[in-house]
C-alpha cells in the first residue's frame, strides 16, 4: 500500500473544466482565478461554489472592493446554478470592504479567520483579490505585506482544510511577475479574445500542482446555465478500432436511383458529403433525405446557412417542419463559434432523438463563423463531423463550389477527405443544354457504383437515369457521345 498522500479531487460542476484540470480540483488547494473585467471570473467562482456547497461542505464568499455585493447577488442569481436554498445555510457572503479601508492586511486576515472559525467552511472565495492588493502599502513594505498575507492566508486555509480561491483582475503579464502565482497551487486564467469584430472567450489552466492538467487555451461559453468549457479534444467513438462492421445497416437517401448507386443506401452513421455547383440540386437532395427519414418515423435536424427567403420556397421542408418531423437550426449570429454550432446541434439531437442531420452548406458556413473558426474551416468541420460520428447519426452535408473545368476537385478546403462518403454532382453541356450528372466518389468500407449517371430535377425530386451516362468527358464539362464498342 502506498504511503503517499492521496489528493482528493472535487468536481467543479463546470462542464468541461474537470477535463482541463486533469480530473477535478485538488482538495484544500489554493487557486487563483485571474482575468480581465468581464471575463467570467465571478461567474466561474459562483458556479463552482454552488456545485460544491452543501450542508456538509459550506462555502464562504468574501466580497471586497470589486463588484458591489448587491449587484453581484442581483446578477449571479440569473444563472440556473444559483440555488437560493443554499444561501444562508450552505453559502454565506461576507463583505470585507469596511475591514479593508484601513489598508491593513493583518486586520483583513484576522476578519477572514474569525468568519472561517465561525462558519467552518470547506470552500473559501475572496473576490476581488486585486482590490485587497491595491489597498496595501506601496513599495517593498507593501510587497512583503502582500506576500506575507498570501502565504498566511494560504497556509491557514490549508490547515483549516478549506479549498480556497482568490479571484483577481489580472492579465497574464501581471500574474507572471506577481508573488501570488508562486504561492498559489493553481491558476485558471480567463480571457476574451477579440479577432476582427468577434470575441471568443478562452480559459487556460496555467498551473495546477500535483496533477497533469491540459495545457493551452480552450474555448468557453457563458450562457444562462453558466460557464461551459470545451477542451480541445475529439469525442471518443466507442469500438472505433476494436470492431469492424462489415455489413452496416443501409438507410435510404430518399432518392431511389442514388440508393441503387450506393448498393442499397447509405451506411447508417456515415457522413455523406454532396458537392457540386450552385443550382445542381444539393438542397433538394437534403430535403429528400430528411423526408425519407420522416416517412420511417425518424426525426431530422437541418442546419441551414443559406438565406431564409430561399428556404421558404421549399414546400416539402416547410411541411416536414409543420408536421414536427424536422427541426431547423437557424443561426442569426455572424460571430458563431464551432462550440456554439455543436452545442445547438447536439442539444437538438438529444432533445428530438434525431437520427438524420443535414448541414447545408459548408460553403456558406464561413459567413456565420467568427474569424478564428472561419480561418480554420477544415478544423471546424472536422470537429463537427467527429461529434456527429460519436453520436451515431447519419449526416448529409452539402458543399458548393465554383466549377472551374477541367478540375477534379470534389470540395473546397479538402473537406471531402473528412467525409465517409462523397457524391459529386456536376453540370455538363449536352446538345445545347446544361445537363446534370452525378457519381459516387467514395463510400468508406463499402462497395458502390462508379458510374456517372444523368439526372433531372422534377416535381418528384431527383430522377436519376438507371443507366450509365452515354458520354465521355462528362467531368470536363464538354462531354462527347460515347462510341459503342464493336
Amino acid at each position, binding site marked *: 500500500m502506498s504511503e503517499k498522500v492521496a489528493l482528493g479531487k472535487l468536481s467543479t460542476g463546470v462542464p468541461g473544466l474537470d477535463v482541463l484540470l486533469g480530473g477535478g480540483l485538488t482538495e484544500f488547494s489554493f487557486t487563483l482565478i485571474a482575468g480581465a473585467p468581464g471575463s467570467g471570473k465571478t461567474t466561474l467562482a459562483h458556479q463552482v461554489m454552488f456545485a460544491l456547497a452543501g450542508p456538509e461542505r459550506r462555502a464562504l464568499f468574501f466580497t471586497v472592493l470589486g463588484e458591489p455585493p448587491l449587484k453581484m447577488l442581483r446578477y449571479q442569481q440569473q444563472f440556473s446554478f444559483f440555488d*437560493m436554498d443554499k444561501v444562508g445555510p450552505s453559502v454565506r457572503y461576507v463583505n470585507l470592504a469596511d475591514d479593508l479601508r484601513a489598508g491593513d492586511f493583518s486586520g483583513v486576515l484576522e476578519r477572514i479567520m474569525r468568519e472561517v472559525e465561525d462558519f467552518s467552511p470547506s470552500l473559501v472565495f475572496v473576490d476581488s483579490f486585486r482590490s485587497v492588493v491595491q489597498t496595501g502599502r506601496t513599495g517593498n513594505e507593501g510587497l512583503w505585506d502582500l506576500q506575507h498575507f498570501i502565504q498566511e492566508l494560504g497556509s491557514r486555509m490549508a490547515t483549516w482544510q478549506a479549498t480556497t480561491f482568490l479571484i483577481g483582475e489580472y492579465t497574464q503579464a501581471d500574474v507572471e511577475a506577481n508573488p501570488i502565482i508562486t504561492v498559489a497551487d493553481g491558476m485558471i486564467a480567463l480571457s476574451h479574445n477579440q479577432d476582427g469584430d468577434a470575441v471568443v472567450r478562452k480559459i487556460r489552466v496555467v498551473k495546477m500542482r500535483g496533477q497533469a492538467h491540459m495545457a493551452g487555451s480552450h474555448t468557453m461559453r457563458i450562457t444562462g446555465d453558466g460557464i461551459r468549457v470545451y477542451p480541445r479534444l475529439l469525442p471518443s467513438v466507442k469500438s472505433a478500432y476494436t470492431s469492424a462492421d462489415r455489413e452496416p445497416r443501409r438507410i435510404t437517401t430518399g432518392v431511389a436511383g442514388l440508393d441503387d448507386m450506393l448498393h442499397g443506401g447509405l451506411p447508417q452513421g456515415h457522413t455523406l458529403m454532396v458537392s457540386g455547383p450552385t443550382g445542381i440540386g444539393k438542397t433538394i437532395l437534403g430535403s429528400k433525405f430528411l423526408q425519407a427519414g420522416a416517412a420511417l418515423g425518424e426525426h431530422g435536424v437541418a442546419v441551414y446557412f443559406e438565406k431564409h427567403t430561399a428556404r421558404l420556397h421549399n414546400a416539402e421542408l416547410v411541411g416536414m417542419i409543420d408536421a414536427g418531423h424536422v427541426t431547423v437550426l437557424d443561426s442569426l449570429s455572424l460571430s458563431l463559434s464551432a462550440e456554439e454550432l455543436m452545442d445547438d446541434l447536439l442539444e437538438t439531437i438529444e432533445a428530438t432523438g434525431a437520427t438524420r442531420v443535414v448541414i447545408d452548406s459548408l460553403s456558406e458556413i464561413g459567413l456565420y463563423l467568427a474569424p478564428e473558426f472561419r480561418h480554420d474551416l477544415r478544423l471546424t468541420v472536422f470537429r463537427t463531423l467527429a461529434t456527429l460520428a460519436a453520436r451515431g447519426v447519419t449526416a448529409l452535408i452539402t458543399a458548393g463550389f465554383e466549377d472551374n473545368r477541367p478540375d477534379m476537385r470534389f470540395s473546397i478546403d479538402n473537406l471531402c477527405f473528412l467525409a465517409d462518403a462523397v457524391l459529386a454532382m456536376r453540370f455538363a453541356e449536352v446538345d445545347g443544354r446544361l445537363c446534370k450528372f452525378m457519381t459516387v466518389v467514395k463510400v468508406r468500407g463499402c462497395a458502390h457504383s462508379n458510374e456517372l449517371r444523368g439526372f433531372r430535377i422534377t416535381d418528384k425530386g431527383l430522377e436519376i437515369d438507371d443507366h450509365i451516362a452515354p458520354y465521355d468527358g462528362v467531368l470536363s464539362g464538354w462531354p462527347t457521345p460515347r462510341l459503342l464498342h464493336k
Partner: protein
Amino acid sequence: MDKDDYRAQPASAGEASDGPRPDHAQPLVRTWSRLGRQLVPLIGENGFGALFGRSLRLMVPVYAWLSVDPSRKTSATLLAGLEADLAAVDADTAAAANEELTSTFTRQLGALIGAGLTARLLAESAAGDEKQQNQQEHK
C-alpha cells in the same frame, strides 16, 4: 456594527435627546438592528446605509417628522436617528410608520436582489428575532 449597539453613538449622531424615551421606539428599532446585523456583513455598511437612507427619503412625504440627515453614514447612526424620530411621536403613529418603512425597505432590497432572496434573508433575520425572544422568555 456590534450587537444592539445602535445607541452606542447617539451623541455623535446629534440626534438622540438627553431625556427619557418612550418605550415604544426601542423594540421597533431593535428589529432593524437585527436586520442590520444580518445585512451589513453581506452588503456592507454602505450598502445597508444607502438602502435604508433611500427608504427613509421615500417615506418623508407621508411622515414629514422622519428626519433625513446625510451626515448619518453608519447603520448605528441611522438607527439612532430613527429611534429618536419614533420616540417623538405616539406609539400607534410610530408603529404605522415603522411598518411602512420596513415594507419600503423590503421592496427596495427586493428590486435589487429579487423577492426570493430578500424573503430568505428577512426570514433568517426574523428567525433570529424569535430565537432571541424565546431565550429572554426562558430567563
